[in-house]
C-alpha cells in the first residue's frame, strides 16, 4: 500500500508534458472542427454561420462521392497488396538462399525514402513517352500505357508504386514472426508427409494470424489517409480519379480557401475512421491488440 501511495503522487508531472500538447494540439482542433463545419469561411473575413448547408452541398456533390469511393478503392487495393506481397517476400527471404541479404536490404530501403522522392521517380518511370516501363513495352511491340493519364489506370498505378515504396515494413514484421516459429513444427509436418502448401496453410498462416491482422489494420489505417502519392504524381487527376478524402480536404482548404466546406469533409473523414475503429474493436479488437 505504501508503495502505491508514493507512486500516486508524482504521476501528474510525468503526464503533464504530453497532455499539454494533447489538449491544445489534438483535442482542441479535433473538436472545434465540428462547429467550423457549420460556417462559410475563407479566413480573410469573419466566419458566417450557415447551418448544415455545407453538408447538404457536399452530399449532393458527385465529386464528393467519387472521393469516398476512391478512398475505399485505394485502401482495399493497397492493403491486400501490401499484406499478401509482404508475406510472400518474407517467406522468400526466410529461405536459406545466397543473396537474400541483398534482397532484404533493397526491399526495406524504400521505407526510408520520402514520398516526394518516391513520387518523382515513379512519375518518371510511368511517363508515357520517355518512361522506362513504356520504353520496354515499345521494344516488346506492346501498346504503351498511360499509367497516370488514363482514368482507369491512374489509381492502380498509385497502388502498384506502393509495392516498391512501402512493402518493406510488412516484410520485416512478417519475417520476424516467421523466424519465431520453431523449426521442429516444420520438421514434424514434413515427417508426417505434409507438402509445402499444406505446411503454409496449416502451420504458417495460423501462427501468423495475429501479426497478419495487425499488419492489415495498420495498412488500412495508413492508406485511408492517402495524400502524398496523389499530390506528387497525379494532383488528383485524371478527371478526379485519384482524389481521396484527405486530398479533397487539402484542396478545398488550402487551394480554394473554403474552410467551412473543408471542415465538413474532415468531419466526414473522422466519422469514417471512428466507425472503422469501432468495428475493428468489436470484431477483432482484442486479438489485434494483444498482438501489439
Amino acid at each position, binding site marked *: 500500500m505504501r508503495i502505491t501511495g508514493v507512486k500516486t503522487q508524482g504521476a501528474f508531472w510525468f503526464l503533464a508534458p504530453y497532455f499539454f500538447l494533447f489538449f491544445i494540439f489534438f483535442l482542441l482542433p479535433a473538436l472545434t472542427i465540428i462547429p467550423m463545419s457549420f460556417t462559410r469561411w475563407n479566413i480573410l473575413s469573419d466566419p458566417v454561420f450557415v447551418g448544415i448547408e455545407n453538408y447538404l452541398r457536399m452530399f449532393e456533390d458527385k465529386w464528393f462521392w467519387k472521393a469516398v469511393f476512391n478512398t475505399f478503392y485505394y485502401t482495399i487495393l493497397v492493403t491486400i497488396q501490401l499484406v499478401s506481397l509482404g508475406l510472400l517476400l518474407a517467406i522468400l527471404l526466410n529461405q536459406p538462399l545466397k543473396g537474400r541479404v541483398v*534482397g532484404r536490404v533493397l526491399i*526495406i530501403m524504400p521505407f526510408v525514402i520520402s514520398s516526394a522522392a518516391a513520387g518523382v521517380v515513379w512519375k518518371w518511370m510511368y511517363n508515357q513517352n520517355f518512361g522506362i516501363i513504356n520504353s520496354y513495352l515499345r521494344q516488346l511491340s506492346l501498346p504503351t500505357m498511360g499509367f497516370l493519364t488514363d482514368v482507369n489506370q491512374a489509381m492502380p498505378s498509385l497502388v502498384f508504386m506502393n509495392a516498391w515504396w512501402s512493402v518493406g515494413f510488412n516484410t520485416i514484421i512478417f519475417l520476424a514472426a516467421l523466424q519465431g516459429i520453431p523449426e521442429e513444427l516444420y520438421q514434424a509436418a514434413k515427417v508426417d508427409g505434409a507438402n509445402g502448401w499444406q505446411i503454409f496453410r496449416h502451420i504458417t498462416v495460423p501462427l501468423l494470424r495475429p501479426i497478419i491482422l495487425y499488419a492489415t489494420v495498420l495498412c488500412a489505417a495508413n492508406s485511408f489517409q492517402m495524400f502524398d502519392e496523389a499530390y506528387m504524381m497525379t494532383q488528383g487527376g485524371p478527371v478526379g480519379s485519384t482524389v481521396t478524402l484527405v486530398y479533397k480536404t487539402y484542396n478545398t482548404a488550402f487551394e480554394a480557401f473554403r474552410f467551412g466546406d473543408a471542415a465538413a469533409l474532415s468531419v466526414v473523414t473522422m466519422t469514417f475512421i471512428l466507425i472503422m475503429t469501432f468495428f475493428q474493436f468489436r470484431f477483432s479488437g482484442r486479438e489485434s491488440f494483444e498482438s501489439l
Partner: protein
Amino acid sequence: MKFKFSRAFLYTILGLVIVFYAVPLLVIVTTSLKTNTQAMTKDFQWFPNPVTFEQFKIVLDRFPFERWILNSIIVTVGSVLLILIVSLPAGYAFARMEFRGKNFLFGLSLMTIMLPFFAYIPQLYLLFLQLKLINTYTALMIPLATSGVSIFLFRQFIIQIPKDLDEAALIDGCTNWQIFYRIILPLTKPAIISVIIFSVIRSWNSLMWPLIAASNDKVKTLPVGLAVNVFAATTGVVRPQPYGVIMAAALLSILLPVFVFLILQRYFVQGIATTGLK
C-alpha cells in the same frame, strides 16, 4: 530432382525481386548523370553517355538546397527530442504508477493513433495561424509529438521490465523521478531506438503538413522543396525542371537517409520487428 527445381525456382524469384527493388534506385542515379537530350530519348538507356554532373550543379545553383537540408535536420532532431521528452515519462507513468483516471487517460492518448492530424488538418492550420507559429520550426515539430504511438510502445516495453529493481530502489528511498531516470531509462534503450528510428523517418519524410505550414524558404524542408520548387507538383505555379534535374535533386535528398539506413541497418530491422512483436 524436385528439390533442385524448387531451389532454381526460388533463386529466379529472388533475382526478379532484387531487380524490381533496385530498378527505381538505378533509374534515379542514371537519369541524374545524363544530359537532358539523352534523358529524353524514347528508348531508355541504362548508361549515361557522356556522364555529366551538370544536373547536380543546376540543383545547387538554382535552389537553396543546403538550406532545405539544414531545415530538415533541425526539424527532425527537434521533433524527435520533443517526442522523447513528452512520451517517455508518460509511458513510464502508464506502466508503473497508480493514479485515478489512468485507464481513461491512456485511452485518450490511444485516440491520437486512430485519429491522426490529417483528419482535422484545416483546424490545426488555423490554430497555428492564431498562435502566429506558421512558418516556424515549432509548427513543424509539434503535430508529430501529439501521436500517442510512442507512449504506447514505451508503456508496453516498460511493463515487461521486472519490478524487483524499482521496488528495491523505492524502499531505499529513491523518488519516482530517480527510479525513472536511473533504473528504467537505461533498460528502455531498445524501445527508445525504435521510437527514434520511426520518428526520424516520419519527420524527415513528412510532406503534407510542412507543405501547408512551411511555405517560406527559411523553414522549408527537403520534401517540400523537392515537390514544390524542383518538381512543381502543383501545375502552373512554378515551371517544372527537366527530369535530369529532378532526379539529381531526388538523389541528393535521399543520400542522407539511405546512408544512415545502410549503416544502422541492423537497428532498423530490429526496430521494425519490435513494433510488430512483443
